[in-house]
């Protein structure tokens, strides 16, 4: 039986860092990166 289910950074170390993702302060909270999306990965 399956006792562990994986829901999903070392990979992103190789292909990340383009800097095109949305700045988090352009979103909703304005006062307090967890919610960010990687634009390149999502394409």
């Amino acid at each position: 039986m399956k006792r562990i289910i994986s829901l999903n950074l070392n990979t992103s170390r190789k292909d990340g860092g383009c800097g095109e993702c949305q700045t988090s302060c352009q979103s909703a909270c304005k006062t307090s990166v967890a919610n960010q999306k990687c634009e390149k990965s999502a394409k």
Partner: protein
Amino acid sequence: MTDIRLRRPTGRKSTEIMVHLFKRLGYNIAVDTASASVHVLDDVAYEAVSLYGKMSDEELIVAVAAKCGVTAADAAECLSNIRELVDAGTLFSEDRFRPDVSVLAKRDPVVKALCLHVAHTCNLDCDYCFASQGKYHGERALMSLDVGKRAIDFLIENSGSRHNLEVDFFGGEPLMNFGVVKDIVAYAREREKECGKHFRFTLTTNGMLVDDDVIEFSDREMDNVVMSLDGRKEVNDRFRKTAGGVGSFDIIVPKFQKFAEARGEKEYYIRGTFTHYNPDFMKDIDTMLGLGFTRLSMEPVVASPDSPCALTEDDKLVVMEQYELLAKRMIEMRRKGTPFVFYHYMLDLEHGPCIYKRISGCGSGTEYMAVTPTGELYPCHQFVGEERFRMGDIFGGVSEEGKKIRDEFRRCNAYSKPECDGCWARLYCSGGCAANAWHAAGDVNGVYSYGCDLFRCRMECALAVKASEVLDEAE
């Protein structure tokens, strides 16, 4: 809830290994801190992971079998599953990212986002406003179109090879200068064609001046609209009232309902603030849902500790309970086919931020800055008016003093703060908000520990919500 920390010797230095194990909403969850991998475990696996690395394999198998009432063969198979994840680098993985901090520090500074303070004035007089009724401790002022255009040029000139640029219209109340907002957007649209850039715009409004013109324009040009509403009428009207003392609830709710409906598939958030007077903010979330809003954000007040609206230690437990109630409500309503969005629970585990973004955080003071109505630059909207943080202006650029401030902010990250060393959530918060740290600890490289406690609670709830989605889909 437990954090398992191991240190593995590798050459002269040992590397950090941490797994955060917790139970929320009936789910057993393990977060591998370094890889940001998230695993949902049954009770046997939860026990096995909690003992991993603390004893020999044989001892672990005996202990798990005895504690969970399974056979030794079952416990051994579970251990084998754990080993597969360890070998794949998604459980008990080593944190090798610390050297990446110096890689980021050597990059040429680019600016990719500006918060444009188009109005340092407001038609509401909210006691808790960190902007002091929109004036930021200064004089009332409106940004001219010339300053707005220069801000767009400054952003383009300093954006290097970045294609996506962002501008947030902020205040005060930006709709008190709506004509200039429209003209700045038109100018940016002209410039983006010439320069091969793409602008994304956001509007943050208290709603008082929302009309058909604002709605139509925003639908066309704004990627996101943030609408300020605190929830229950009595909660909203306690703080969000006109200078004459009239509450805004009855004025803004119909406008926001029309605005939200017109947004269609485009992004918007109803954004509330909770204070010492309403730590039970789930009632405000319910009010928002009852009014038909489905994209919500509810944030703790930013206030000095001696303010009557500041959250207290006693409030913290109430707030944490609300976060869990909110997670339950999200799961329940999704299962009923009437889902809603809560900003802080929107995690994308497949396409989340890369390690470089997680280390560097929101970019305040480096790639993100605030511009005052007269063109002065500050690290972000929460520092505007604090002379010590003035970084120059959009006409002369970042000053010599501003470059020192930029370096100070660049040194703020998930690995720069000793308090973050043992925290499982540091690659989700990136070391926390510099403004919160400045207000709480007097140092942008400090921490706001109250906020840290709330953040970790929110993250656990968000991961439980995510677990429910994935497991429901698998069934």
